[in-house]
């Protein structure tokens, strides 16, 4: 599928699917997986240096790490209460990983450094080495599935299996069908929204390769990168909070 040729940009190529870069044994590494690794490595190194020699009076990188983690923790604790410690690592990683990956995708070199290859039909294909990690549905669906499993396993643990079914059913048992459908669409909307925004941003920046105008769109993309990370994290958190809510009423009903 040659998206850009459809809208009149001949010679430019961008595919919805992430392009394979190289093989690591049986696994093919795509450019998005490669970028995800870079993001992971950067985050791990930065975290290591931020927490290597922690002081009671923070400064520099430690201060920054504390403000980010503290802010995220306050948000998570505000929604799920004392169970925040358990779910916090996944939710915080959603935000931190998505925002860093999105912003990294705006760096020069992304989608522009690459190699030319020939596909099976002999067409020339440009394979970028760096591609924003979230412009790959596998990445966003992967995270959305993790959020989905987190939300519902938390619901089952808090309410017990039968209690969670009743929680899903709400006041009318027939509503369980609607509620299950809604819950099933949560990961779909989470993953497609993030993918769509980041992929569209890439295409947009590729098309708007005009000085000044391109810079203006770049500013917008910086904003979108942050907003998408916030949306993904906050929606996961809110659905998690809903799944864990009503715990006390439930206990009172039993006692």
């Amino acid at each position, binding site marked *: 599928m040659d998206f850009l040729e459809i809208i009149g940009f001949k010679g430019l190529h961008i595919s919805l699917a992430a392009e394979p870069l190289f093989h690591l044994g049986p696994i093919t590494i795509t450019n998005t997986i490669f970028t995800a690794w870079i993001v992971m490595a950067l985050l791990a190194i930065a975290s290591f240096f*931020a927490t290597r020699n*922690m002081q*009671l009076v923070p400064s520099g990188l430690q201060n920054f790490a504390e403000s980010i983690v503290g802010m995220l923790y306050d948000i998570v604790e505000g929604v799920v209460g004392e169970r925040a410690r358990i779910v916090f690592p996944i939710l915080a990683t959603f935000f931190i*990983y998505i925002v860093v990956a999105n912003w990294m995708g705006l760096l020069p070199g992304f989608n522009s450094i690459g190699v030319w290859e020939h596909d099976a039909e002999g067409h020339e294909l440009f394979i970028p080495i760096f591609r924003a990690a979230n412009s790959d549905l596998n990445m966003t669906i*992967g*995270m959305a599935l993790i959020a989905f499993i987190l939300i519902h396993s938390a619901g089952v643990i808090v309410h017990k299996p039968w209690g969670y079914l009743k929680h899903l059913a709400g006041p009318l048992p027939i509503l369980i069908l609607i509620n299950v459908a809604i819950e099933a669409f949560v990961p779909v909307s989470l993953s497609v929204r993030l993918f769509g925004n980041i992929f569209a941003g890439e295409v947009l920046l590729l098309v708007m390769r005009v000085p000044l105008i391109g810079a203006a769109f770049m500013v917008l993309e910086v904003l979108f990168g942050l907003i998408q990370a916030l949306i993904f994290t906050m929606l996961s958190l809110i659905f998690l909070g809903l799944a864990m809510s009503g715990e006390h009423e439930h206990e009172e009903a039993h006692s």
Partner: protein
Amino acid sequence: MGELGINPTYLAFQIINFLLLVLLLHWLLYRPVLRMLDQRKERIRAGQEAAERARTEAEEMREQYERQLEESRAHARKIMDDAAAAAERLREEGVASAQQEAQRILDRGREELRAEIEHARRELRQEVAVLSVSVAGKLIQESLDTEKNRELAASIISDLEENS
């Protein structure tokens, strides 16, 4: 699905990748940072409690000192009042004894004076009596014996005393 790039192998790979990142960040970032935040919170709380305790102690001490100061003040005031009262009493005693002394001296003087006067008066009477007798003797030219003289003088003296 192929055109969208969804591939179960990549999907699984990305999920593992992400969970690995969660673990990495948990070890390297969340756990140490949250522990540090807790530590700091605990430390600040302890500091505040210690400050509150110190403040209460200082307040108690201040009250105690004020009480002691008040007691000392009252004590000092009592001592000064006593001293003033004693001084006043001493002064009054001094004045009283001085007055008594003066009165005594005055009385004695008056007494002596009266005795002098009495003495003088008696002598004068005797002089007058003797004189009168001799004058009378000369006048009546009659010699009287000493016994009669004395009786006469006594009667004159008694007359004089009755007249005086």
